[in-house]
């Protein structure tokens, strides 16, 4: 972690850092730590979703008034300036549209990753720089390190393996990494809660957020409503009606209720039976078919990912040996990554891996270091 001593060696003016404050315990402690280290801290909460009454339907709560209240109270406690910025428009375009479109084209999108990539590290970072901030800080459990030899910023796993969020950060560019501080990278969640107690923050006991912030209870009905609401705007992805459930040979086994209601590897709620348990193998949006089969067929030898992005290296010239994580909680599997055309990569697993899910990210690690990653295409 960057320390104040090294930062302040040439000037008496403390470095300014904008902390993205969600009202949760992590970002609150991040702000408190930076304040204690002597930074000139400004807290900012992003208002991302319209939760007020009005013409728009109320889908759920993201950065709800309660969270804004908590963030503001923490900022008051720390005696730092605090602002709420309105990024609803950017959020709805970059995250919500992406999320809904992803499901409508048969993928399982990852809105949190997208929110980091666009909202936090593009839109909010720009806003922070406009406020003359030297850095932007977030409460992610991850670490940034500058490697003198490679002349590159490296992204590393958080020290708390159970909380490590580096998976959600693989899109970060060198420029972004040079402006980012993750104050919690060397801490465990237990440390963080203890610190919150120590600083007397009212969010010390607040429970972690789990669900998708803008669609808290039930994402399929959110998608149906949202896609329905924007149907008039000529959006390229439309809500398809119910269709067939088929096996790998094309035999019709039953009917699905709309493809966006299913994810790869899902077993429950399919409503079809055959001697053995059946799993969702493929979501075929083109033919509006849900392909199911036995567990064995869920395994694949590899995947193709698009929009590959590299952090620890400029670009791989030859196949790389990595640990690949294909979803957030995935422990990782040994794999070989080979570059293809169009910024795509082919990933071959050491042994077949279950439930490769298009729309999720595959992130490549070497030890603690995030080498790069891409978005799973197939």
């Amino acid at each position, binding site marked *: 972690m960057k320390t104040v001593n090294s930062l302040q060696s040439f000037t008496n003016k403390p470095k300014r850092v904008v902390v993205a404050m969600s009202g949760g315990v992590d970002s609150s402690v991040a702000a408190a730590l930076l304040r204690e280290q002597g930074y000139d801290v400004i807290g900012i909460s992003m*208002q991302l979703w319209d939760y007020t009454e*009005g*013409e728009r339907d109320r889908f759920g709560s993201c950065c709800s*008034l309660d969270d*804004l209240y908590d963030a*503001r109270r923490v900022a008051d406690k720390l005696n730092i*300036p605090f*602002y*709420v*910025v*309105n*990024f609803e*428009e*950017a959020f709805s*375009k970059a995250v919500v549209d992406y999320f809904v479109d992803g499901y409508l084209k048969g993928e399982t999108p990852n809105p949190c990753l997208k929110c980091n990539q666009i909202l936090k590290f*593009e*839109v909010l970072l*720009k*806003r922070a*720089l*406009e*406020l*003359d901030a030297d850095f932007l800080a977030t409460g992610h459990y991850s670490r940034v390190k500058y490697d003198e030899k490679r002349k590159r910023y490296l992204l590393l796993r958080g020290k708390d393996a159970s909380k490590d969020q580096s998976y959600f950060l693989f899109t970060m560019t060198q420029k972004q990494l040079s402006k980012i501080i993750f104050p919690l990278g060397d801490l465990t969640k237990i440390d963080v809660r203890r610190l919150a107690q120590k600083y007397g923050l009212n969010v010390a006991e607040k429970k972690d957020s789990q669900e998708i912030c803008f669609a808290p209870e039930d994402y399929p009905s959110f998608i149906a409503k949202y896609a329905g609401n924007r149907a008039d705007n000529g959006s390229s992805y439309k809500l398809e009606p119910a269709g067939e459930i088929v096996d790998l040979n094309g035999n019709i086994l039953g009917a699905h209720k709309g493809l966006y209601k299913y994810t790869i590897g899902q077993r429950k709620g399919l409503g079809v039976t055959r001697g053995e348990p059946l799993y969702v193998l493929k979501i075929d949006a083109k033919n509006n078919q849900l392909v199911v089969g036995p567990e064995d067929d869920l395994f694949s030898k590899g995947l193709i990912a698009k929009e590959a992005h590299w952090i620890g290296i400029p670009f791989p010239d030859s196949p790389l040996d990595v640990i690949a994580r294909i979803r957030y909680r995935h422990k990782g599997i040994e794999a070989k990554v080979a570059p293809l055309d169009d910024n795509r990569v082919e990933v071959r697993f050491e042994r077949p891996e279950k439930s490769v899910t298009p729309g999720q990210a595959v992130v490549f690690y070497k030890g603690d270091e995030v080498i790069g990653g891409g978005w799973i295409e197939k």
Partner: protein
Amino acid sequence: MKRIYFDNNATTPIHPEVFDAMLPYLKDEFGNPSSIHWAGRNTRKVIDEAREKVARLLNCDVGEIIFTSCGSEGDNLAIKGLVESKRDKGNHIITTKVEHPAVLTTCKYLAKTGFDVTFLDVDNQGMLDLDQLKKAITPKTILITIMFANNETGVIFPIEEIGRIAKEHNITFHTDAVQGVGKVPIDVKKLNIDLLTLSGHKLYAPKGVGAIYVKRGVRLVPLIHGGHQERNRRGGTENTAGIVALGKACEIAHRDMEQEIKHLTALRDRLEKGLMGKIPHARLNGHPKNRIPNTANISFEFAEGESILLNLDMKGIAASSGSACTSGTLEPSHVLVAMGVSMEASHSSVRFSLGRGNTVEDVDYVLEVLPPIVEKMRSMSPLYSAATGGAANISFTESGSCSH
């Protein structure tokens, strides 16, 4: 750090004379004005006096003033109370797209409960087309509610003409004059106004008190049922201190208006000329002449308004863009959108609303501080260099991402 307050359309500081006037009613004079005994008698008297002062400012009778708790309550009472009392005569309401949320949201709510609402457009200077208003009138129109002056741009609507049109058609005319009362002369008789809303904290009285003018003969169904206060039109024990304060504020406004208009106009013009002169691509939003004297709404294209405000705040300057909302966020302005102001100009707008305490030094400080802020932000905007390099018509929407 300097502290400069240029957000008087959001709220004003309490005038020292107002503060002194209300203080006894927060201390010793606590009686319930409805009581028959000595404790109530004096508070009843000062409420009557306050009512006279408000009436004098608006040129109406004392019996035509109802005290409320705020501007929003006043708007709700005037609009809902009126349409309910005239429900058997029709169900059509005419308003504009640029009203304050207290009117806009109320009208949208009524639209859900069986009323038809016409939302009139404004032109690119924020002005109203009276022909459009005339065309919108139907035999079922029972209420025209159009604001006196816009809170964001300061633009004053042609109230006298609207009043005349309403009268010709026998339609009740309500005006939300929260931004007009105390800033410019308002004569409800001359302007043919039937209902008018005002709010204390926009004219140097504290928050928590407002009033509506209800022309004699106009029937309102109360929002708050209760005791017989305010001639049975607004139940609830009177906020004596607040009402006394509002009365005093109206008295002062009446007394000082001429000189305040001169003072504010001079400062506002100095600010506008200075900013336009020092900052390229700065543009005034709203009609340049038909405005209340204290408001300047300016777009600094290719700089994010929200960022400008935060930067100004860090320099001790309080300004705003659009209307303040409960969570402290900034909404995209529905007023500028309705005026057809482009996306980037609307996102780069800042509203300066001056008040009685402001000085030439305040204005000059802003003129010193703001140009470098805008310049810094433009230097970070790729769109600005593209635009100043010749590609003049670039906009956020065309470039595919609204990068604010």
